[in-house]
């Protein structure tokens, strides 16, 4: 809807939709202060009756050449900070998405491998759900990061360590039949 004026003092006069019961923060390349303002209004109006949900907490989406763009996690943090409350995060490492998969397909965790490039999302979720975890090095993670977690004395960091790793998922081909 069009904003009723140029400043936040105008925007907060616009009527709120009565039926809104949740604020969902996803990747939004059109994120703006006005939207943040609106999200805050719904969360304050609803209190505990209005959910705050984020799709994921990724900080960055990597692009070629080492550049990246801000990830959804940044937008979630902005809303959480303004509203002074914590979002429920649907995405990895939360097990919610694995539960969605398991509901649709017959998945036996003991016979399922989670393949990912990110320790604090892919590998952590896989380990939490009892899957075998396989790290590929074609993405954001370097091997010495894994070694750091492995050598730490901290159980939380150990849950970031995959069972196996490959330089690339192409390296799996020789293990499969022709």
């Amino acid at each position, binding site marked *: 809807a069009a904003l009723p004026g140029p*400043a*936040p*003092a105008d925007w*907060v006069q616009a009527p709120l939709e009565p039926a809104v019961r949740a604020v969902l923060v996803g990747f*939004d*390349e*059109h*994120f*703006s*202060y*006005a939207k*943040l*303002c609106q999200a*805050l*209004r719904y969360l*304050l109006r609803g209190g505990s009756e209005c959910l705050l949900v984020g799709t994921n907490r990724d*900080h*960055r989406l990597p692009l070629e050449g080492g*550049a*990246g*763009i*801000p*990830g959804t*996690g*940044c*937008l979630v*943090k*902005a*809303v*959480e*900070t*303004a*509203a*002074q409350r914590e979002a429920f995060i649907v995405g990895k490492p939360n097990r919610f998405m694995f539960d969605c998969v398991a509901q649709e397909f017959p998945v036996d965790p003991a016979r399922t491998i989670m393949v990912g490039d990110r320790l604090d999302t892919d590998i952590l979720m896989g380990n939490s759900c009892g899957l075998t975890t396989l790290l590929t090095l074609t993405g954001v993670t370097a091997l010495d990061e894994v070694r750091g977690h492995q050598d730490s004395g901290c159980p939380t960091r150990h849950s970031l360590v995959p069972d196996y790793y490959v330089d690339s998922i192409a390296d799996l081909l020789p293990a499969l039949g022709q």
Partner: protein
Amino acid sequence: GAGLREVLGPAQGLLFDCDGVLWAGERAVPGAPELLERLRRSGKAALFVSNNSRRSVAELERRFSRLGFRGVRAEHVFSSALCSALFLRQRLLGGGGNGSGAGRVFVLGGEGLRGEVRDAGLRLAGEGEPAPGEPVRAVLVGYDDQFTFAKLAQACGYLRDPQCLLVATDPDPWHPLSDGQRTPGTGSLTAAVETASGRKALVVGKPNTYMFDCIVERFGVDPSRTLMVGDRLETDILFGKNCGLATILTLTGVSRLEEAQAYMASDSAAAKDLVPNYYVDSIADLIPGLDE
């Protein structure tokens, strides 16, 4: 009466937060202009320290006048916009000199903030042709009601250079509007930039003490004879504690008395720093503590 005189009598000066203390929106707190007048007649200094990074101190001087406060000049007003500009001048220019070779500043904020940065002798990214070898040396996050994903991405691009500073005007998560609603504060925008860049911002505003350093440098204030008056426990009262000032909470703004009581009852040492020494319903209640 008597208690107030004991507190105010020895004080050489008072530092006031502005929003929620002197005024709420476009309305002066009843009795606030009279309090400032009485302070002047008592020979006590009144200085102003605000986390609000929207306005230049020149605009604030006009605002004071428009809302009925007499005799407040721009030099008495320390806003986070001004102090952020002074901080950046110190860090990028070494406190003096002209702008060449210092690099530019990418500002997320409105015209008031941008003006203060320019007035400090710094050049803004995106303005005029950059000289060769004039990189962006600082990203300054302020209150920016035109904040967008594109600006966030641009800020992150600059912050890939570890030499580029990340500075925030203030940590406030939200600000109250006159009808009880809230508008997101600089703190929420800073959280987005920190998350995207993996960096922690240097925060100029209260409760950090840099703005007090600016005040001391200009006016030579003695903390043991100065009172801090504010409405927000997490910024004003903690700022007072951090600077060695006795603190007075006024209840015309953000914080409720119950919140101060909760901090007082808490076991945590950090919570104790958020408990004011005194509180009043409104700063007008300080008037009886001053000589006729």
